[in-house]
């Protein structure tokens, strides 16, 4: 997995690409989110447009990012979720946890109170 970080106003966009499947992926996303929290940037959108696969470990990595930010009074939302990833979220009922968007600006505008 590759990860690029950019800002859209007060929201940080994490552009992921490749496979989100475990191994070093977990360290990369965890370290990035911890760094953002230290900088006070706790509004995060994870853009999955270029992610080809997510397996159950990858879903766990997203959950860890979500819970880490929520514990620090932040939030994590998902952008451009593919049909395959939607299927996994739906089957595991994690679609009730993650807010998903198809428009980056809608995702950015959705942050209130964090």
């Amino acid at each position, binding site marked *: 997995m590759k990860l690029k970080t950019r800002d859209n106003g007060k929201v940080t966009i994490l552009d992921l690409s490749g496979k989100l499947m475990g*191994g070093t992926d977990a360290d990369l996303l965890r370290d990035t989110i911890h760094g953002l929290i230290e900088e006070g940037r706790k509004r995060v959108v994870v853009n999955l447009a270029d992610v080809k696969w997510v*397996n159950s470990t990858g879903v766990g990595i997203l*959950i860890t990012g979500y819970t880490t930010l929520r514990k620090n009074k932040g939030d994590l939302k998902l952008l451009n979720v593919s049909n*395959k990833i939607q*299927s*996994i979220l739906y089957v595991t009922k994690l679609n*009730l*946890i993650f807010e998903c968007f198809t428009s980056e600006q809608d995702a950015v505008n959705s942050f209130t109170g964090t």
Partner: protein
Amino acid sequence: MADTIVLEFPSSYKWLNMIDLVCGEVSSEMGFGREALNAISICVIEACTNALEHGNKCCPEREVRAVFKRRPDRMVIEVIDCGRGFDFKEYLKHIPDPSDIHNQRGRGIYIMKQMMDSIAFEKLPGRGMKITLEKMIDGDAEKNCD
């Protein structure tokens, strides 16, 4: 297309592209719809990553075998690792709630159970664990889990 396709690959994530391509080709050829194609792809990748991570401990010298079988009414996929196996009967009794965000384990098998029509585990003497996944072409079969 042959009725059975067997692929063996080292325990590395980079070979999953090949597995997904073959899986997609076989399942498309069999006439599965888009939803079923996605489900099969997700579950085959899940089974293969389980095999190379948990079974083979990501050791490149250990191979994962993926077998795709075309049957008149279903697609059968077997994924076999070289690991020591696990107590799947006990494990299947206690699959955690996949929506529990405080739990990191158990979602893979839950996902495969939900998305496929049948899932079975077997410990192969002298080889490792075999997981067998089945997807019915009509998609309406009663689910089995052994």
